[in-house]
């Protein structure tokens, strides 16, 4: 009876374990997702069949900016790095001991500014201008206590947008200061890497204020 119970216990332990130690995970089974937002550190998840991967045996994950390494620090299930204001092209690198290395590229959008008039009546057009870019998708957000929140995604980035009269709905009578935010987001990924999957999302925000008048 004791031998039978021991046998069952051993078998139960053998059947259900999904690998999470890097030496047990093939490069083809690794999924990488990278996210970066303005005023925040870069966050990357590196996962295998058993969840977040713990690197061992000389295997590691880090960032490259050209030939310069930027270390990634493990925090919980994510890897994080402070890019120190650097923008442009980066590479997330995974060095393997027993399988092929992986290298995936992503881009962090450059800072930009947005301008708006000092004030504008809600019954007049409101023109916003910012530094355009050929990459990324732009969205406009305007919020304030006297208006209904206004959100709009743009099809192309021309560096300029005029919100027509009456499109910003009034929430209360009178004037108020409203926050204008332009967000530029670059997303991407690739199914042609030697990883299971790779995706990234990098968002940069520019803000200004204007006075919304009745």
């Amino acid at each position, binding site marked *: 009876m004791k031998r039978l119970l021991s046998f069952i216990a051993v078998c139960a332990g053998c059947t259900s374990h999904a690998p999470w130690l890097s030496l047990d995970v093939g490069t083809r089974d690794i999924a990488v997702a990278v996210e970066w937002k303005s005023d925040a550190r870069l966050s990357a998840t590196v996962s295998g069949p058993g969840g977040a991967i713990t690197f061992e045996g000389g295997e590691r994950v880090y960032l490259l900016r050209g030939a310069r390494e930027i270390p990634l620090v493990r925090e919980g299930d994510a890897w994080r790095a402070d890019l120190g204001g650097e923008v442009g092209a980066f590479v997330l690198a995974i060095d393997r001991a027993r399988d092929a290395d992986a290298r995936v590229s992503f881009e962090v959008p450059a800072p930009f500014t947005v301008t708006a008039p000092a004030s504008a009546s809600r*019954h007049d*057009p409101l023109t916003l201008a910012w530094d355009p870019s050929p990459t990324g998708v*732009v969205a406009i957000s305007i919020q304030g206590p006297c208006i209904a929140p206004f959100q709009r995604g*743009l*099809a*192309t*980035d*021309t560096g*300029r*947008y*005029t919100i*027509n*009269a*009456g*499109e910003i709905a009034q929430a209360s009578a009178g004037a108020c200061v409203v926050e204008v935010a332009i967000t530029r987001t670059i997303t991407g990924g690739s199914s042609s890497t030697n990883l299971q999957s790779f995706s990234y999302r990098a968002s940069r925000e520019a803000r200004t204020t204007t006075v919304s008048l009745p």
Partner: protein
Amino acid sequence: MRRSFACLVFLAACDSSAPAKPTDTSGVAPSSIVTAVTVRSNGAAILVEASISGDAVKLGSGDALLAGAPDVAERPLGEYQPSKGAWAYALFLPTAEASVTLGFARAAAAARQTFALPEPFVVTAPATASRAQPLALSWNPGKNGETFTLEARGPCLGGAVTRTPDPTGTAFELQPADFQKYSGVCTVEVKLSRRRGTIGSFAGLAATSQVTLEQLRTVTIETTP
């Protein structure tokens, strides 16, 4: 006893699975007939569409929904089935008038109410325009309490672009940033709708009946890069 009980259970199951006959308005008080009517004008003709809900889903043989205009004699709306088990009613009025009279008739009696449509409008738009410049549209103004909607469609817009300009305004510009990167000529169709709705009894019908009144205009613009 067991046989009787089993028989009762079987019969009860049979009754609940029998298909229900559609309920019509015969014998239903007009104040209990819930009607939803849409009156839509394009400036040259009016389309009246209606449906019935609540205790009845179709008109009884002695009942009729009526519609007319100042220059078009009143007629009953025609009945059709848009799908199985559903009934709808429609009538086309060849009139440019901006008011319509809706009514409900049962036997020899009829009750009517006249509704004013939203202010008619004419849209001014270019026949051709460059997508690199704001695309300007203009029209005569409406009134507060109306909803004004602009919907633009075209392959260079990636689907529909819907906007809600000021209902009392007179102009709108589609922005270059509203257009996707697109080479060549792109036909853009813009539908503009000025709409007002009422909820309440009309022609003696239920207090939860609805009438939606709409002026609808469509313009087409050939756009270039």
